């Protein structure tokens, strides 16, 4: 031991987490670089893995011709309307179930029984009922978004701190005031958690539905490229989906920060 004695060291130091965005960007760049290198090396046929630059080039062509935008617009429209319908009904039902024990006793078993059914399995039935057009696609997305939103909204309402409800009652609120001014804002964070799950599901379902029956959309773009063995277009379609997913969760994050400013 030295003359100064033993200096205390921070044993918990390794628990500290410091965020470094540059690392994430670096990883993406390295993967893209590897892709390009492997594609050019001749180790694999460009039919299986064309280099990144070729994929981007083919993407640029269909972007310039406007084809990409019509596919993107078709997919976005389906996601948007399916999401709006599913999330709207999900919030309504979830809040109702969370608030009324009677409604919950009556309806929750039905929800629990239908929730685990993979929604894509219902698509053929929806096509049978609603036709091959837009309605069946919007419906399957709506169905997929509906469940996580409803279940989260129900949980959010049920978990509202009863003390906050008491505070509102003591300040003169009636039942409706409690629902509108306490229960709804208090369950917003949970509802948003449900919406975030819903975005992922909507993306999954839109692509699947477009692969099964569509003449437009990013899913159709990918499948038709595969049919024609155009690997570059196929890979560009996949990159589009990655971008679309990032964009949608960014959008939802913005809305969330706007609506829930009290969460730090």
């Amino acid at each position, binding site marked *: 031991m030295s003359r100064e004695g033993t200096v205390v060291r921070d044993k918990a130091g390794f628990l500290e987490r410091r965020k470094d965005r540059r690392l994430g960007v670096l990883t993406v760049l390295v993967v893209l670089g590897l892709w390009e290198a492997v594609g050019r090396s001749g180790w694999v046929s460009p039919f299986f893995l064309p280099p990144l630059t070729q994929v981007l080039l083919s993407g640029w062509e269909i972007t310039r011709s406007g084809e990409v935008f019509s596919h993107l617009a078709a997919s976005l429209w389906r996601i948007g309307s399916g999401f709006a319908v599913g999330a709207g009904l999900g919030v309504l039902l979830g809040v109702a179930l969370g608030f009324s024990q009677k409604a919950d006793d009556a309806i929750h078993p039905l929800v629990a029984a239908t929730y685990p059914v993979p929604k894509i399995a219902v698509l053929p039935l929806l096509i049978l009922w609603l036709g091959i057009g837009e309605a069946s696609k919007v419906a399957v997305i709506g169905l997929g978004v509906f469940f996580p939103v409803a279940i989260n909204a129900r949980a959010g309402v049920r978990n509202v701190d009863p*003390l906050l409800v*008491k*505070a509102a009652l003591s*300040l*003169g609120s009636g039942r409706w005031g409690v629902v509108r*001014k306490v229960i709804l804002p208090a369950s917003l964070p949970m509802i948003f958690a449900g919406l975030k799950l819903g975005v992922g599901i909507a993306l999954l379902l839109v692509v699947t539905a477009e692969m099964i029956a569509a003449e437009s959309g990013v899913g159709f773009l990918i499948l038709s490229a595969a049919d024609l063995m155009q690997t570059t277009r196929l890979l560009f379609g996949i990159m589009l989906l990655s971008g679309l997913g990032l964009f949608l969760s960014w959008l939802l994050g913005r809305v969330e920060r706007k609506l829930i*400013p009290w969460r730090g």
Partner: protein
Amino acid sequence: MRTVVEGVSKAYDHPKGPQTQALGRVDFAIEEGEFVALVGPSGCGKSTLLNIVAGLLAPSTGRVRFHGASLNGRPRTAVVFQDLALFPWRSVEGNVRYGLEELGVARRDRRRRAREWLALVGLEGFEAHYPHQLSGGMKQRAAIARALAVDPGLLLMDEPFSALDAQTRMDMQLELSRIYEATAKSVLYITHYIPEAVFLADRVIVLTGRPGVIREKVRVDLPRPREERIKVEPRYVEYLERIWGLVRGVGGAAEGTGS
């Protein structure tokens, strides 16, 4: 407004096993403009009693009555809860405005009155902050302003300072007695901290252990405005010792001396 608690008791049902008799039968009154402190050991039913007076819990026996002129729609009681229960999604000013909205006060007046109350509790400049951005003492002040803003007939406070550090607690006691002396509200104040009860109250009601019944009602004849230096006066110390004795079960029949 005068508040009368008549034969109130509470037993909680349990799904399995016997009921919990939380509160025995208690009778007392709170006069218009009086500050009554209720002291008793943890678990003796103080919060239960406060919730009954607030109309948030039904008593097993007895009732609570309010006497006096109509309050024109203002609530009979407003509560400062032990855990504050500030609305996290509302700013400080939004919290104080809450009750005014429910009262139907016009938008412009709500804002003005909320700001007046915030100024009174010393929260000027923090109107736009959210509760999570405030220190414990500031949250406490916000909760007090929120309850006072609806101008209730009786202010109910459930151990509001128990989560504060000693220094802040002392400051808040002074602040509260200043606010009480400025507004002349009736107050029912719950605490298990006897020096606080004696410092703040006109009358201290001592409850026994669970199920709580009234052991003694002690009138506190100390001058107002209450200032920090009364805490070293012999009379204050005598009250402390007497009430300590009552809480520990020494002397004092259920007969109210000087109630």
